[in-house]
């Protein structure tokens, strides 16, 4: 079931997704489509459910309602016809792991394997999961580290790298699996401000190469410049979505306006404080 752009079926097709933690409903019916080659940024205040939704796409969270299709394949379940009608059958752990192989994920706190060097981190998935030959993979992994600007750090352990460098290794690790889709969960939120740029630059390059990306972020400039579409979430629902410049510059919804103006006034305060220092 490969869906090229000609197929018209979106790469990610999420319908009426519901998710609760205990009695707290975090996602209250999310409908989002992402097409191959698209870059979509999920925006919204913290607690709006955007990170949870991203994790649901990769089945790090199980959803309680709705469906998510990845490249035409239902995530986490198999749907079969029975006498009583169509029924869902939960997939085995192995089958879920196989589905995750198609999706690369970059975490807010990097989550590199601390007992492996940068190169070993990148090679781990392809060699141990996809069983690709080690020698060939070593060269490919070196190439990936070079594309994220860390060719000289291949033998460094994560503990010897800065946050920005760690996050770039994490991006290379995800890319090494040759995923159809890349998920970024606030990839720059745990970084010192001066390290944010290098990670965003790698992501810009990826977007320019046509990688399908879903990015949860607070970097409005990145969203405006790079995203094909932004999705604004609040309180577990999609409030509005559309062209990034339109949503960010002239939001139609009150909650979007409030969020963006709060963000702007924070930015102005920071800029003012910086100006006072000089």
């Amino acid at each position, binding site marked *: 079931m490969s869906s090229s752009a000609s197929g018209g079926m979106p790469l990610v097709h999420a319908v009426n997704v519901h998710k609760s933690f205990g009695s707290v409903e975090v996602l209250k019916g999310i409908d989002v489509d992402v097409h191959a080659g698209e870059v979509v940024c999920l925006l919204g205040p913290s607690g709006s459910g955007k990170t949870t939704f991203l994790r649901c796409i990769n089945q790090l969270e199980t959803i309680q309602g709705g469906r998510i299709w990845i490249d035409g394949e239902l995530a986490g379940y198999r749907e079969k016809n029975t006498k009583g009608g169509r029924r869902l059958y939960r997939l085995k752990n192995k089958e879920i792991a196989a589905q995750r192989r198609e999706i690369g994920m970059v975490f807010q*706190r990097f989550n590199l394997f601390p007992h492996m060097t940068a190169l070993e981190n990148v090679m781990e998935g392809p060699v*141990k*999961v996809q069983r690709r030959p080690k020698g060939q993979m070593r060269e490919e992994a070196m190439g990936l580290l070079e594309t994220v600007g860390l060719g000289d750090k291949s033998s460094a352990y994560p503990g010897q790298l800065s946050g920005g460098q760690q996050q770039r290794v994490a991006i290379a690790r*995800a890319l090494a*699996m040759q995923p159809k889709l890349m998920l970024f969960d606030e990839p720059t939120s745990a970084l010192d401000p001066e390290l944010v740029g290098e990670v965003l630059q790698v992501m810009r390059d990826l977007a320019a190469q046509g990688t399908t990306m879903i990015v949860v972020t607070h970097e409005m400039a990145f969203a405006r410049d790079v995203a094909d579409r932004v999705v604004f979430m609040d309180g577990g629902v999609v409030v509005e979505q559309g062209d990034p410049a339109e949503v960010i510059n002239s939001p139609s919804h009150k909650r979007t306006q409030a969020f963006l103006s709060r963000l702007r006034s924070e930015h102005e305060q920071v800029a003012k404080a910086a100006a006072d220092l000089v």
Partner: protein
Amino acid sequence: MPASTEEAGSPPSREGGGGASPTDRPGPIDAVPVRHPGRYVAVAIIAMLAAMIISSFVTNERWDFPYAFRVMNYTPVLEGLLKGTIIATLGSMAIGITLGVVIGIMRLSDNPVLRVVGFLYTWFFRGVPRLVLVILFGTGIGYLYPTFDIGPLPFSQQLAEWLGLSSDLTLFSLNVNQISSTLIWGIIAMGLSEAAYMAEIARAGIMSVDDGQREAAAAIGMGPGLGMRRVILPQAMRVIIPPTGNETIAMLKDTSLLAYLPLATELFFQTQAIGNRTLKIMPALTAATMWYLVLTTVLMIGQFYLERHFSRGYGATRAQSKSATLRSRLIGLSEGGAK
């Protein structure tokens, strides 16, 4: 001294110092360290006590160190050391660690059956004293189950009786008392007991690994088993190794319980026998004590290198000062303790 007061006198202004060139860097601080007069007193007292003890070793003939050293080298003692102490320690720790990690993982499983089985195992083997277990296995099994009968089905013998068959369906049977030895039962008993403690250590180690690691392993498509082997366990080892070293040393000493199995090829059994025979009980005990200390020292050094292996990737400073770190680990004496 005058130089240091001058530097202390000039307050923080960084660019001050009147166009200081890089060559004007202040020299290293030359300060009088805090004096610890108490330490000198303590050293003097300890030295005197040590001298008194050592002199008693030489003057008190009841210690009889020459005889103790001879006992250490007797063939039966060396055989007991090899089989009943070294092999028993290695064997029971091998069983204990392997089974312990499996049970530790079981106790953290999503599967309720595995969780309960793991709990019951730990409950039983942690609840029965090792000495009791050792005697229970050493003498009890051969009495309760003199033969192991292997049949085609579970409950074959009962089934045959119930169906009124002439044969009892046993394919072949093993004579337990012929194939087993007290050493093997001792190793099994100690290994099973150890697994209960190792399970708790492994469980703590696995739980100490950040959840993000599990998620990262899942995100590159690893199933739970592969993620456990490649990502979680290697990191858990850092937490598991130090208490395991502790357990190994404790096990080394607990092998002396095998003397009560009774196992004759065992260090403590042999030294006691020699002491009883020659009426030189103290020198014989001293011989055993010294062997235990030698082996414990070897284990502590081994533990240091294991720990260093599994801490790769954590703290770049460790690999640099190898000898200093070994010394500080073993006796807690390092000058730069605050580093």
